[in-house]
């Protein structure tokens, strides 16, 4: 739909814009054109009203010939041809108008006098059409930038939603159910240990609670969250669960989205260690180099383990959040090497003051 015809208000504004043009045409027809003022005014206003609508048609060739993508020859040909056709139509209309007016007393003989002004009218028609072409290109540019703005808005809303959804999904309720079951077991066999596990679980949950509202936390805080998580899991899995860490001290104050690594470690426990009869290790490594923070989470797993439900959802969440937040400045890759599963992440190492 034509953007000007789409709204009555816009159409009226557009027609208003033609009034000065009609005024100029009146002057042209009266002074160099040799018509009386009454004749010139009538002819100019009727023709301009008509031509206003003819010029609206320039929208379509403009749309079909985008400025950036069309060659110069095609651009010139399209619009010059358009101008000639439009102006030709205009002359034809002027001729009919002249004949109609000639039958009235006040305008007797106008048709022959108007015919002498045809070259003038034709040139004006061509110029006005080209003016309309320029006007429509401005219109197109405005519309494109408005669309781009809307797209950016929409993208940021989507990213935010994805982030919230991801955060909600992360503290896995089954982790809670299993932990409560362990506590229930310990209450009769080892009450102090049951109490210890309650406290560890409470500590972990409290740490995760406030995180949803934060945009970023230092890596150090995320790692201590992982420690709280593993302290609980360690009671469940006992010696089956071993954690190894290699953290570059310089990486500790780098900012990361909260709960970015915890789901990866949870995944490593649930899909790796939980399937190994003898258990195994999880390795966490982080280093900061050339403004990049790279983090690797590796774990042993059983390639022949029974298929588990929901595998990969945690990973997909982490990938999505990285994408939403850093775009292509972050990398996320998973790989399998024998019975070792590896997730490698890299993201821009931002310090506290640069994070909004």
């Amino acid at each position: 739909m034509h953007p000007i015809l789409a709204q009555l208000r816009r159409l009226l504004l557009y027609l208003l814009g033609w009034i000065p043009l009609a005024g100029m045409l009146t002057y042209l027809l009266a002074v160099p054109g040799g018509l009386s003022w009454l004749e010139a005014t009538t002819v100019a206003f009727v023709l301009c009203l008509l031509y206003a609508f003819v010029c609206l048609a320039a929208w379509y060739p403009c749309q079909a010939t985008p400025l950036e993508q069309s060659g110069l020859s095609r651009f010139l040909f399209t619009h010059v041809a358009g101008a000639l056709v439009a102006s030709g139509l205009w002359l034809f209309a002027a001729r009919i108008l002249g004949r109609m007016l000639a039958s009235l007393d006040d305008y007797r003989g106008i048709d022959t006098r108007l015919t002498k002004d045809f070259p003038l009218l034709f040139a004006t028609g061509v110029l006005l059409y080209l003016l309309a072409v320029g006007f429509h290109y401005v219109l197109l540019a405005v519309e494109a930038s408005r669309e781009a703005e809307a797209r950016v808005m929409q993208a940021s809303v989507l990213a935010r939603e994805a982030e919230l959804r991801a955060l909600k999904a992360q503290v896995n309720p089954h982790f809670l159910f299993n932990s409560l079951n362990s506590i229930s077991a310990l209450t009769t066999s080892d009450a102090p240990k049951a109490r210890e596990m309650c406290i560890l679980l409470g500590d972990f949950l409290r740490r995760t609670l406030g995180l949803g509202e934060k945009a970023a936390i230092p890596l150090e805080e995320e790692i201590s969250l992982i420690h709280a998580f593993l302290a609980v899991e360690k009671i469940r899995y006992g010696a089956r669960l071993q954690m190894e860490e290699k953290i570059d001290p310089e990486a500790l104050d780098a900012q990361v989205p909260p709960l970015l690594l915890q789901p990866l470690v949870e995944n490593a426990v649930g899909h790796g260690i939980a399937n190994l009869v003898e258990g195994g290790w999880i390795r966490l490594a982080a280093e900061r180099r050339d403004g990049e923070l790279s983090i690797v989470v590796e774990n042993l797993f059983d390639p022949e383990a029974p298929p588990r439900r929901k595998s990969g959802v945690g990973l997909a969440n982490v990938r999505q959040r990285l994408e939403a937040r850093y775009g292509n400045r972050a990398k996320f890759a998973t790989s399998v090497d024998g019975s070792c599963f590896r997730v490698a992440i890299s993201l821009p190492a931002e310090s506290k003051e640069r994070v909004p």
Partner: protein
Amino acid sequence: MTSDTSKKIRTLIVDDEDLARQVLREFLSAHPEIEIVAECANGFEAVKCATELEPDLLFLDIQMPKLDGFEVLELIGANRAVVFVTAYDAFAIRAFEVHAVDYLLKPIGAERFNAALERAKERLSGKLQTAPLPAMELAASARPPSQYLDRIPVRDGTSVFIIPVAKLDYAEAQDDYVALASGGKKHLKQQTISSLEAALDPSRFLRIHRSCIVNLERVVKIEPFGKDTHVAVLAGGTQLPVSRAGHARLRAFLDR
């Protein structure tokens, strides 16, 4: 139930977490009619113990190393009472489809546990009747739709083999069993060929004969055999019978 030792309910606990087994053991200790015959921490052990010790009742975790609870049940047969114990409610429907007596959610309460045990006793004494169906048929029917097998567990005595379906060459019906051919070896499994067919991805496996399913990747050529029938020749030279209907299906597949 009497306190007579011979009448005790022989019970097996299967869970990979020590503490989870501990809760079950504690709850069971309140019932003198229960005898815990063994505790297992993974699927392989569970199949071994269930086969050797023939328990009446199993408390079975679902997500475990080696084999999941459904695979364990599929291998040991359904002639015993099974109570699933898991933190995941998502398996409940599948559990009842394989005729589990009950489905307990962790953390387990004593009251709920006792109710499950009561149901198990009713089942064992024959009060709670369910149509006896071979476990394998059930396992096939209980598979979530649109999700085909990616591995087939088979049992030979007390040991378990896992055949990834990509390594399954063909399957042949033999009385009540199917013979699963993989890498030159054959493994017998108590299952009908139709239920196996239903569990395999139809874009990779095709029923070419009343008694035969073939892995399409292994088929090298089809040769005429007798008047109306054909044989399919596999990569290793094995020849399999192809019925008329099977031939039409196979042709349609190969022509695609």
